[in-house]
């Protein structure tokens, strides 16, 4: 359960103030699949950073599972990310020269999980993300774009998060591979009831979600059910 109440984010560059988010409020229920859409410079990246507990708002409140995240310290934010959030980035950010399994285990390393349990959970996540078992011990630089993104999804799942945040997950992929990745998100949402927030600037991509929040100039321009949802 996510509640965003009157969030404002102001960046100061010298004397100028940039109002990246201006009094934004919305809430997302568990199990929803939401796309946050907007052109570049609209504030959607700032929104993602705040939702992902990478940054805190200048003003307003952000409740994640009933806990106020908007005023936490760096280390407390790290704990929130560790326990409640899974990230899938545009540029995949896998560790180089490291096996698929080790990459997926990474978030568990910081939770202090034992070796056997780490491996077990990493494998389960990779199955969920639809990653081919024969490639579990391949190095990350031997994988194709689609495979890399599946590993990234598995990594986002491994700590069993409240929320999966995907930041332009198809941005570096061709349309066909992108569809496969989006299908994976849909399946995880449908079968495992995962809450997924998809950040994108493309309407085609956003249309895979159940609900679209359209942000423009730091404000919500439109928020509603997606009536033209594309289900793969």
């Amino acid at each position: 359960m996510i509640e965003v109440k009157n969030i404002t984010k102001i960046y100061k560059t010298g004397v100028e103030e940039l109002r990246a988010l201006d009094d934004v409020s919305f809430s997302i229920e568990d199990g929803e699949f939401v796309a946050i859409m907007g052109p570049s410079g609209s504030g959607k990246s700032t929104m993602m950073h705040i939702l992902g507990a990478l940054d805190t708002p200048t003003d307003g409140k952000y409740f994640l599972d009933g806990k106020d995240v908007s005023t936490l310290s760096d280390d407390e934010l790290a704990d929130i990310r560790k326990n409640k959030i899974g990230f899938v980035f545009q540029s995949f950010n896998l560790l180089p020269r490291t096996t698929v399994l080790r990459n997926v285990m990474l978030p568990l390393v910081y939770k202090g999980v034992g070796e056997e349990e780490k491996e077990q959970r990493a494998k389960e996540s990779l199955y969920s993300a639809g990653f081919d078992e024969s490639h579990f011990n391949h190095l990350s630089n031997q994988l194709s774009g689609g495979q890399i993104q599946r590993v990234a999804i598995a990594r986002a799942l491994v700590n069993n998060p409240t929320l999966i945040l995907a930041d332009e997950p198809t941005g570096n992929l061709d349309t066909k591979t992108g569809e496969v990745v989006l299908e994976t998100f849909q399946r995880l949402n449908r079968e495992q009831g995962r809450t997924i927030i998809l950040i994108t600037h493309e309407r085609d991509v956003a249309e895979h979600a159940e609900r679209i929040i359209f942000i423009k100039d730091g404000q919500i321009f439109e928020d509603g059910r997606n009536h033209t949802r594309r289900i793969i």
Partner: protein
Amino acid sequence: MKLTDIFRETFTSLSANKARTGLTMLGIVIGIASVIAMTAIGQGAQSSIQASIEGLGSNLIYVYPGVIQPGRGIVSSGRGSAQNLKSEDVDVLLQISGITNISPELQRRFQIISQSGNNTNTTVTGTTSNYGTVHNTDTQTGNFISEANERSLAKVAVLGSTTATDLFDEDDPINKTIRINKVNFKVIGILETKGGSGFVNPDDIVIVPLSTMQKVLAGADYLSSMSVAVVDKDQMAIVKQELTDALLRKHNVEEADFSVMSQADILSTLTQVIDTFTIFLASIAGISLLVGGIGIMNMMLTTVTERTREIGLRKAVGAKRRDINNQFLIEAIVLTFSGGLAGVILGWLVSFTITSLGIIKTQVSFSSVLLAFGVSTVIGIIFGYYPARRASKLNPIEALRYE
């Protein structure tokens, strides 16, 4: 974060760029190796000098006529040339309870000629039968000077092994005649070989009875030195004081007209010189360690920059500042510690080579090895601290965007 995980990550990242890791480590390896080798040489020199001084007879106090004048050091015209140390002084000193034995000595340099016509110029020492016990030496063949020889002004001589070879080559010198200062002496014994200590050759020596030396060869009644054996090491200080007091009374003077030196004094002077030398060598080696440390820091800073995105990712998945800090700090420590290990091995090999080539007998001490590991770890901490801190303070959002 578990320790096994940290070490796995460290291994992965250090082995990712083996050439760079190796070259950076080389700085530490060379630094540690030279510290080990230098201190090994210093300690080897020290213990060989210590051994040779103790070989001269342990628990000894030397008494010389004349004063070592303050500020003018040992090279003073007073000592040795003064004539105020007499045979009677020996009897006075023997009353002191801590003194077990005294060897009175009168030394002169003479030209010596053997029967076969070889000749040599060496120190002739006139002494009594106590010389052997006091100086911890004995004859290898034949006999030492006896009390009877002493009483009868016998013209007999005991040779050091070097002098024996100089005068008689391979022949057995026992019962042969040598001429010291145009007086015939019979050789009655050869001293056991002591081996060179580097400064003087203790085997280049001729010993004759003290009475013969004083009355026949030198024509003088004084002594050039006295070697006093003390019952045990702990009593050295007390005996030294009592000895000084007794001689002052005997000579009836206020200020000493003689010098008293214990073996500990000589040893500590030499040890001080060698220590200074060792510290000097080790500090030069220490500078190369410092340079090695700067190399480590340079590499770690490069690594942090190269891995900015990785750090961003780690932070995004929940790594705290401390986790990132520990990871990079441990990476630096592992780097310097393994460099230290290799350095210890290399330094040990160097000193082993020096020993086996017979240049100087080196000694790698356990404490210097321990110190080397300690120092290399500390270098890792010092030079890894700043890069690790820099990594831990990176903002995850900016780090993730870093190209």
